[in-house]
């Protein structure tokens, strides 16, 4: 008789679990959802351990730093970035631009030539924001699109993601943009 009671309880629990998983949207995937922190240009925002202030967005046909240059279509994002709670770990590892279904990652090319030319992947510090640039290499037809800039520490899994809308039609379009060196924002 005790065996039957155990089996009945097990069945009841399975049915309950079925209802719970049915009521959970998208099941386990939502466990990984990022915490979105909306931001805008010239607005300072903070997530769990990432503070960002985007200072300017510029479209450029040519970007350069030191002896390096590249031609194409580039979005140059100038920003200040800092850590909020801890410096270890704190690095701006995720810098993506999402346009429609396409995801573009921050170009490694300027940073490959000169580490100081790119803030992407750089370690961040408490209280002392770093100022620098992140560059995205894009297709030429992007100039009329809308996109979102997504900045995070180490992946978009269950952590703050700072999201900045980018309206390409409203951006200043320059023929050439020199990239600033990474430096302290308030020396």
């Amino acid at each position: 008789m005790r065996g039957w009671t155990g089996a009945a309880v097990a069945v009841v629990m399975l049915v309950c679990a079925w209802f719970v998983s049915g009521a959970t949207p998208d099941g386990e995937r939502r466990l990984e959802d990022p915490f979105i922190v909306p931001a805008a240009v010239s607005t300072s925002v903070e997530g769990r351990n990432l503070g960002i202030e985007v200072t300017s967005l510029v479209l450029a046909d040519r970007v350069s730093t030191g002896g390096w240059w590249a031609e194409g279509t580039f979005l140059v994002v100038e920003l200040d970035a800092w850590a909020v709670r801890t410096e270890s770990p704190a690095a701006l590892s995720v810098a993506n631009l999402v346009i429609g279904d396409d995801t573009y990652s921050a170009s490694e090319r300027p940073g490959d030539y000169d580490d100081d030319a790119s803030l992407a992947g750089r370690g961040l510090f408490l209280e002392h924001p770093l100022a620098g640039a992140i560059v995205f290499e894009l297709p030429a037809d992007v100039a009329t699109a809308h996109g979102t800039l997504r900045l995070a520490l180490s992946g978009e899994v269950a952590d703050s993601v700072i999201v900045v809308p980018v309206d390409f039609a409203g951006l200043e379009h320059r023929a050439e943009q020199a990239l600033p060196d990474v430096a302290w924002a308030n020396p």
Partner: protein
Amino acid sequence: MFDRYPERVDTPNGAPDAGATGADKTVLSGPFARLRKASDRVPTKWFATIGTTLFVVVTAAFGGLNAVAAVDEPVPTIATGVVHESAQLNITVQRAVLIDSLRGAGAFPDRDKGERLLVLLVEIENRWHAPASGSMFAGLLEPTYHRNVVIDGMGTVADGIVREDDQTLNPTLQPRVPAVLAFSWVVPADAYRDGQTLTVLLKDAELLEGQMLFHGEYWSAPEPAARAQVTIEDVGAGASQ
């Protein structure tokens, strides 16, 4: 009554005698009683035979143990400068150069061992909606392109992959932003010669959907999809390159 499974007394012809059957009826009850009674009547030795027969029949039904004949899909041959299109990448082989050494190529021939560099200039456009990594250390499910261009007959991944314009090593290819890359292999000096037709094997990956242990889409290991032919130019020490 402790004896739930009373010992059956089998008659010499294998059938249980009437008395034992009567005892079973009183002791066993519940939904599995009939099944248990039925299986009790099957001699244990038969199970091995039944199992083996089932295995053989099922195997035969699926075509037996012979290897499935590999389907040889003909791989088309294309000329230099022709775009090879696939769902993940558009690949165009532009030029093949034999050179003593090339600074920034990411591959280092040892002149004392008689080694030279075979450099392939290839334009690749990433058609997928996420960046494609050039790194050999890319994650298992990360889209990559470094295995999609190999020399036919050699098969190894290039020793160095750099952008042709600024020599960025293993560059990431952004969606719909084509780039000319230099794939370099260290080769013995006498393996290739000027004017020889080189066959480049271009491979396509297949988009797969995560099934059980993970979700999302990823690209499979690339398989041969086209052979591009290109004439090798020997530029000697590389002054003209």
